[in-house]
């Protein structure tokens, strides 16, 4: 399961809307528990595939190292990655699979249709080796409804109070 707070989840989806018609990508930092990858924050990554940014993404290793170091300073690990599929379903592609090497991590894909975020799916890269890896769909639990001012259940404070 992927656990993510509402504002972080929205930040992932919004990133894809902003970069449309190009793909966006980013790194998810958080904590790995037994069966849960918990996302605490996301870091936007520059898509270095400028030659075909509309349907390819790539994060430079130097950038990953920098993000990993930033996370480490806060006690957070890389738990996964996200990217968008402009005008394409939120399903992993053969390229996504071939280029996925972070076993145990979550790969989140958001479909962006004509600039608006639609479906967001998460796939866990499972298996103990590169040869045995596979993508398994995993549920996304969006939390944060109980954080004051962030969730739909909380009413905004009256103006002037």
């Amino acid at each position: 399961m992927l656990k993510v707070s509402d504002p972080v989840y929205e930040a992932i989806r919004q990133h894809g809307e902003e970069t449309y018609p190009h793909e966006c990508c980013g790194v998810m930092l958080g904590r790995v528990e037994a069966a849960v990858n918990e996302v605490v924050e996301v870091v936007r990554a520059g898509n270095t595939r400028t030659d075909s940014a509309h349907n390819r993404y790539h994060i430079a290793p130097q950038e990953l190292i920098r993000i990993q170091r930033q996370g480490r300073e806060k006690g957070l690990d890389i738990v996964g990655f996200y990217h968008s599929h402009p005008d394409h379903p939120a399903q992993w592609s053969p390229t996504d699979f071939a280029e996925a090497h972070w076993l145990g991590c979550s790969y989140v894909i958001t479909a962006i249709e004509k600039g608006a975020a639609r479906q967001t799916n998460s796939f866990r890269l499972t298996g103990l080796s590169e040869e045995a890896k596979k993508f398994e769909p995993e549920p996304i639990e969006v939390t944060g409804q109980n954080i004051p001012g962030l969730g739909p259940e909380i009413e905004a404070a009256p103006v002037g109070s």
Partner: protein
Amino acid sequence: MKIFIPTPLRVYTEKQDAVEVSGRTIEEALSALTSKYPDFQKHLYTGDGKLRSFVNVYLNDEDVRYLPQGEQTPVQEQDTLSIIPSIAGGADRTGEPCHPGERACCCRG
């Protein structure tokens, strides 16, 4: 020196995110790592002993593949090595064939 371990490979380092090793070169440091944690070998190297194509090793901020002396580059105690699997993908709308195992496919083009 310190070797930083990415999340997926920590199952082989008793969950440690960094491992302290000693060696005079990058090669010696990496082999100290694989002798300490033998399971690392097959995750870092192909059968013929080459670094797997998707595994990047960085000495501080430099890709070891592009260092003039490569893995023979001398290292100091305060240097760090980072092992970082690559991150890429795409939506494949161009219709090019791309299958797991074909390392030289569309995504490298």
